């Protein structure tokens, strides 16, 4: 009897809870399908075979699923048929995207139906309908932000008609930082892959205040033409990545790459990731997405700092002083100086003062006095509201020049002619084609220049590891410091009028002022350490200055600079230089450079060069 019961039970259960048997070739074909590869975040391994970017055992159902898409597929298929009583732990609840795809591919009509309460609640809360690619643009005073970041926003159905983007969620991929590593270790580990990458799903509002207020970055919103169905597919897959650890490397396996993968899950016909062989820079993400025809429209949200500056822009000197006075002491709202202003001007001053107060409060703990001042200003604004702030949209960041630059120059140094060949891996200098970049920002990574003098005489002219310059103008309201650092190898005047290759690190700090609409003047104090073969010391320190003018004109950017380094060993090295860019096209620029160098070790040297720059990739 017992035996018969057991037999019956077996018969009853087997067809119910077993995955359909599938022949090997069908399984292999399915497992090689680009969609399955995308869902598992597989890439072809260096030595053939597959490996997944996911670095987390919890993501895989098969023991060696990270390296075997086919075994993972077989294991998934089996798990889909587990008893429905597993509830939220059921594979169908944990892997909704895999489930949907396999169900469609294999017409699985007999799957158990677990109650995925947790997942359903989450999905309803998100209610995906459309998606927006978010790109926080570079902030001048934080050149590391130049590489940017991209995230996705998931909108509900009526976000556009209701203007409720503030209620949407943002999908963010970033390094997951644990413990209390110090800053240096943090930066190093972040760059070298010491932290795992994780997806987070946070209110868009939080991300907005992070970028617009804390970091003062403008935000660009690219509304994508994904259908509700495509958006839903992507969000299903994002659920599968909840708390799942990825490899994270700053240069390639970063946010940009992960987001492109997500878009491919949304719309399988897209091929975005294969265009990113080496490094994925966020602007490139935007370009790739745009090129694929995904962008429906572009919106711009200025940073809080830009809003403050725009509000203060029409104010004259005396009114700006009023802004400072009123922000410091709201009692001054009753002062004769303030009340003498016409009402509309008072409205502007009050608003600027409020914005200045909030700008200063950014990133600080709540301060009761400051809160009271802000509140008083709000009450004043309420009585006399300013007109809405209109801010002109700057150039689209993705239309700025490409990052990798090839350079070909011809010139003369004193009476010797030369040709110069250069390659820069990234990104932008003060004179480069300006569209989409702020004036006064420079960040260059890895630049090599080789020079060929007459008589086939070759030399390394310079090797820059990194050059960063941040020339942010000061005004009555905001007084940022300007600064610069650079390091590498370069040629400087040496004995017998030779050009000597030295290794150096230098930096400076100072101020920048707006001299005109498109003109900046800057003055920085500098320090430098250098290893120079003509010096007795192994390492020679110097202090000096670097000052100049930067002017955006009809041709391109012009810079005129004077520099001086006063070494402790008596050497004094100074130079005057002029650079004018002629912007030929989006991807081509012609630069005229002239320089005169003075040194205690050599006679003054003149150099003139005409250089073609090709912004290639």
């Amino acid at each position, binding site marked *: 009897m017992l035996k018969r019961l057991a037999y019956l039970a077996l018969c009853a259960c087997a067809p119910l809870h077993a995955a359909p048997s599938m022949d090997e070739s069908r399984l292999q074909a399915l497992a090689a399908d680009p969609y399955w590869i995308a869902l598992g975040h597989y890439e072809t391994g260096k030595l053939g075979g597959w490996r997944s970017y996911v670095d987390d055992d919890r993501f895989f159902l098969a023991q060696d699923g990270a390296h075997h898409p086919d075994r993972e597929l077989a294991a998934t298929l089996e798990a889909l048929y587990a008893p429905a009583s597993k509830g939220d732990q059921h594979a169908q609840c944990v892997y909704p995207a895999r489930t949907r795809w396999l169900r469609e591919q294999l017409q699985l009509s007999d799957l158990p139906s677990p109650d995925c309460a947790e997942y359903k609640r*989450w999905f309803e*809360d998100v209610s995906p309908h459309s998606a927006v690619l978010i790109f926080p643009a570079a902030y001048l005073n934080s050149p*590391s*932000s130049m590489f940017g*970041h991209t995230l996705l926003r998931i909108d*509900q159905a*009526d976000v556009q*008609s209701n*203007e*409720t*983007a*503030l*209620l949407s*969620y943002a999908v*963010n991929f*970033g*390094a*997951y*930082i*644990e413990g209390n590593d110090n*800053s*240096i270790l*943090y*930066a190093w580990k972040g*760059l070298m892959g010491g*932290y795992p990458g994780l*997806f*987070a*799903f*946070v*209110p868009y*509002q*939080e991300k907005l*205040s*992070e970028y617009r207020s*804390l*970091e003062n970055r403008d935000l660009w919103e690219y509304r994508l033409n994904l259908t509700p169905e495509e958006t839903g597919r992507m969000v299903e897959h994002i659920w599968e990545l*909840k*708390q799942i650890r990825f490899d*994270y490397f*700053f240069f390639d396996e970063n946010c940009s790459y992960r987001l492109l993968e997500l878009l491919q899950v949304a719309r399988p016909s897209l091929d975005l990731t294969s265009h990113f062989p080496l490094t994925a820079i966020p602007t490139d993400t935007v370009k790739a997405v745009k090129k694929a025809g995904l962008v429906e429209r572009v919106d711009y949200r200025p940073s809080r700092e830009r809003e403050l500056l725009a509000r203060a822009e029409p104010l004259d000197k005396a009114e700006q002083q009023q802004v400072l006075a009123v922000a410091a002491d709201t009692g001054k709202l009753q002062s004769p100086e303030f009340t003498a202003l016409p009402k509309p001007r008072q409205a502007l001053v009050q608003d600027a003062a409020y914005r200045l107060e*909030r700008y200063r*409060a950014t*990133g*600080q*703990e*709540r301060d*009761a006095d*400051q*809160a*009271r001042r*802000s*509140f008083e200003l*709000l*009450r004043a*604004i*309420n009585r006399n*509201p*300013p007109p*809405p702030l209109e801010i002109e949209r700057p150039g689209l960041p993705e239309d700025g020049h490409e990052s990798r630059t090839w350079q070909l120059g011809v010139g003369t140094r004193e009476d010797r002619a030369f040709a110069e060949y250069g390659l820069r891996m990234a990104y932008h200098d003060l004179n480069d084609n300006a569209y989409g970049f702020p004036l006064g920002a420079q960040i260059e990574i890895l630049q090599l220049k080789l020079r060929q003098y007459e008589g086939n005489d070759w030399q390394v002219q310079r090797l820059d590891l990194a050059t960063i310059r941040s020339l942010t103008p000061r005004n009555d309201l905001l007084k940022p410091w300007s600064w610069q650092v650079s390091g590498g190898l370069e040629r400087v005047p040496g004995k017998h009028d030779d050009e000597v290759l030295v290794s150096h690190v230098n930096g400076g700090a100072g101020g920048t002022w707006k001299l005109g609409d498109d003109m900046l003047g800057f003055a920085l104090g500098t320090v430098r350490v250098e290893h120079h073969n003509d010096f007795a010391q192994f390492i020679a320190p110097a202090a000096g200055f670097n000052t100049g003018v930067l002017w955006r004109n009809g041709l391109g950017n012009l810079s005129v600079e004077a520099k001086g380094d006063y070494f402790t060993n008596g050497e004094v090295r100074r130079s005057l230089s002029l650079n004018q860019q002629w912007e030929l096209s989006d991807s081509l620029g012609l630069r005229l450079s002239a320089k005169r160098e003075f040194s205690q070790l050599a006679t003054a040297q003149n150099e003139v060069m005409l250089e073609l720059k090709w912004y290639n990739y």
Partner: protein
Amino acid sequence: MKRILLGTLFTAVSINAMAQAPGGPDCGWGNMLFEGQRGTPAHFLASTTNGTSGNATFGMTSGTNGCSTNAALTYGGKSWFAMNGMMNELSEDMAKGQGEALTTYAVVLGVAPEDRAHFAAVTHQHFQDIFKTADITAEDVHNNTLAVLKSDARLAKYATPA
């Protein structure tokens, strides 16, 4: 909705899911106006690696600022808890009589599109009744808003959501 909230607030010790009621320890409900900004990048280069420290949130909890809510949700799964994180923006918009946070507030309160301009005008006019002090909390702002809506013939219907 308000009744449910008050009910849970005054429930002594609860062993069910409502333990995490508004005002609970994990719940950001009741942010004060001009609260310091959270999420300050504590590390150099935070913007470079786009790091997140702490628990990587995954929606839901943070959408309601850590408050688990069984209260009726007014708008596409979003309650006006969401406004808790936008208090500064809301106060500024309301003082000026227009802006995205103010529109959002109208939407989560269930104000129909044709009444939103009127809502903006009325709340602007009554800004000082709604934002009474510099250290007002989100909860009081909400209560004061409902009081203002009640006294307006056209908006009174939004003051007592079903």
